[in-house]
């Protein structure tokens, strides 16, 4: 990381020296730089509200709760409304808990479609470009403080379920995760960051 920053610094020095200066700098902002920013974001806690737009429902289904991410691979989604639920992900193991019900443990290591889902969020939060590109082609628009990242599934088994994942954010903060599903339904999760104590 340090050497990369050093590299960037050299790049900047070199640009200035060559008289190309700022414009070239801004052009250099791309997926690697976003990923680097996200990776530096490290662990985080946030609140979320999620809306699911389902064809046969007259109005979207809403839920809200808390998200927490501990770098590099622990993700926790605690839904508080309307139905409490805790979903935790350690590595490739998914644990689902609902009050009054038995804990469910799913091992996703052998299921690429499920892993694709998970990596879309976790890979983004961790700034893991390699993990993301294993399953998606990435398109980035905007600038560092207002970016839009689109993930397009590379494989059919995933495309059968999700056609596109959209993310928006500024700097290391991811503010929106939206899934467009193959059957026309979609979901949107808005994330507001809880300031670190």
């Amino acid at each position: 990381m340090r050497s990369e920053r050093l590299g960037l610094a050299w790049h900047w020095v070199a640009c200035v020296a060559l008289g190309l200066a700022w414009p070239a700098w801004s052009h250099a902002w791309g997926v690697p730089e976003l990923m680097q920013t996200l990776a530096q974001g490290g662990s985080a806690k946030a609140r979320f509200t999620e809306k699911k737009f389902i064809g046969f429902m007259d109005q979207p289904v809403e839920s809200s709760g808390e998200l927490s991410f501990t770098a590099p691979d622990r993700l926790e989604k605690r839904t508080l409304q309307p139905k409490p639920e805790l979903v935790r992900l350690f590595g490739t193991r998914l644990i689902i808990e609902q009050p009054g019900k038995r804990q469910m443990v799913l091992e996703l290591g052998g299921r690429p479609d499920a892993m694709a889902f998970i990596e879309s969020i976790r890979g983004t939060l961790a700034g893991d470009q390699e993990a993301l590109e294993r399953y998606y082609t990435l398109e980035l628009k905007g600038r560092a403080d207002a970016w839009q990242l689109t993930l397009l599934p590379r494989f059919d088994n995933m495309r059968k379920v999700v056609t596109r994942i959209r993310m928006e954010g500024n700097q290391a903060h991811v503010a929106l995760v939206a899934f467009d599903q193959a059957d026309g339904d979609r979901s949107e999760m808005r994330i507001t960051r809880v300031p670190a104590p």
Partner: protein
Amino acid sequence: MKRPGVIALTAWLLSLCACALVIWRTQVVADLSAFMPQMPTARQQLLMDQFKDGIIARLIMVGIEGGDEAERARVSTELGRKLRQDEAFLTVQNGDAETSARDQAHFFEQRYLLSPSVTAERFTADGLHRAIGHSIEGLSGSAGLMLKQLFLRDPTAETLSLLELFAGDSQPASAGGVWASKDGKRAILLLQTRAAGADTDAQAAAIARIHQIFGEVRHPDGGTRVVMSGTGVFSVSSRAIIEREVEVLATASMVLVAGLLLLVYRSVWLLLLGLVPVVSAALAGVSAVSLSFGHVHGLTLAFGTTLVGEAVDYAIFLFMQHSSGQPSERFWRTVRLGVMTSLAGFAVLMASGFPGLAQLGVYSVVGLIVAALVTRGLLPHLMPRDIAMRDLTGFNHFLDRLFATVRRGRAVPVVLSALALGTLLWLHDGIWSRQLSALNPVSKADQALDVSLRGDLGAPDMRYIASLTAPDAQSALRRAEEVSRVLQAAVRDGELASFKSPTMVLPSESLQRERQAALPEPAVLGERLGQAVHGAPVKAERLSGFLEDVERTRQAPLLTRASLDGTSAAMLVDSLLIRRARDHLVLLPLKAPIQGPHPEEIDTDALDQRLRAAGLSDVTVIDILSETSAVFDSYLSEALTLSGLGALAVTALLFGSLRSWQRTVRVLLPLAAAVLCVVAALVLLGQQLTILHVVGLLLVVAVGSNYALFFDVGMTGRPKVERHRTQSSLVLANLSTAGTYGLLGLSSIPVLSAIGSTVAVGTFLSLLFAAMMAPEHGLEDEA
């Protein structure tokens, strides 16, 4: 030949023919049962029988290893497809998409007959409102994507209730679309053979078929290989191992003994004569076992090869004595005493609760008696007048020097024994193995593979089981439903993690009818549904599929075992609802909670109380592990008692014959030292002692006493010529015995290697220690 000789020869030939006739009609078995103790109560015995003969014994777990994930998945899919078409297999499961889709379709279609939440209350307007409300909330959760697809036909989420029934199960992991081990490195399949597990030939054919098809579907460069486990696989492989080992052991023992005889006697005739008692003993032993047990276990045959080493001893003694004139009455007395002490040891085995050990006892007792009789009654008539032996003077001088040297270390046995005793006292915990697997003839590697495949499949370890019986299938299912309700309460209270019942996939007809009756007719349901979704974000019109499905279930025939064909539910019912000659047996495997005050354990007493309180006192809850451990302990104490009695009998025989405490003690001391040293050595080598080691030690006393005895009687105060004779025959006899037991010790079958190594080392030490502790004057008075 004189008249008595003719009579002896005729009698011998006739007996031989009789034995051959018996053996010709003898069935040799090689299953695992002989070295498994019988269960103590009739009811538990029945349960174990069901495990042995029921569906559990028909399962074959197959693993495909090597190659890459895609190739393993392809091989598993192809293998599964071809095996499903094979007559030899009832079911083939490998988690492939086709089967999972069929299972899913089945459970979805039958959800209103299977779901425990289907009650009349749930199908009132209020009940529907609540259930649909829950489902809509569920759409927001992690299972939303799945529920969304089911919602329109299953708005009350009965499918989810069904899933929850099985939530405690760990399904195998999946890799490349088929079942795989947790690390994904092995694709796995679960097969059920049509033939019973006890039908070893059919099991062998099924296994060969799997190998053959695997050979056809694997890519030659794919690098995949197949592994298998299961009761049937164990039976087949243990039979193969036993057959191979019997052959190898018999050949090796014969070569060893024949080589030894030839070396000393340099006469083919004497060699053949020497083998006469051996062959007679073996034939008589097998016949006796066959007549008293109805069959002969392969292990008995393998063990029987050690008799070669012992039976030949008598001939060795005889020839040695004969080479220097007629054997004295004193010689025969000593041989008789030796035979008696050996018999005392083996006779004890006949009383053992292990059918296998009892066979060994009968075999050895009859064999030894016959060997001694043939040596005494027949061999003297067939022996040439002059036996031209190799000149053993050099050998004897060597032995003299050797014995003189070792006698300087007469303190060694005492010191070693003290050390051994100290070691044993220090390490006294953990000396005994309480694991039944220690007796399992299947190799450690195969047992480890079995455990690993079981783990991959998430198969219940079948430690805790509730069982009940009923006169017919329907009443068995109804009773299982009552028990399930009690067990469900125990799950809620955290006493159980989960349990399985055949009624989860095949409810009793009365419960199915009850559920059918709870479903309202279409007009009523439509009206109630309208009220239920009033104000909800979904319109009743969209839920027409729900109305159709409910009506279809109302009209549909009830589920039977036959309607489960082709689904994984069929296997569950077949393994847990077992039809027997007079009744039906239901097995309900229980899973212990992972957390709590006693993780991985179930308080069976508490469960018994719950069942009694519910009026279900005839349901048995057993912990197979503690049950078998208890049985094992009782067998161990039986073995210790019997061995103690055997040792006492040997002592009594010695004292009765020697008529001097001093001499008896002198004969016994080297034996005791040998026993202590062998036990300490085994413990120090990390071996946990089993009942078989106890038996081995008994044989050390029984067989080893012969050598100590000859040392005492045959050596002390005898003329040098006679002493030399005794000395060389002792060494030869000991070499042949230690050699044949040593060969047995090399066996890969734990049962045989435990006895073999114990006796080989023990008898050798007996002779060595006897030589070390022999009184000095006995040898020096003539030197």
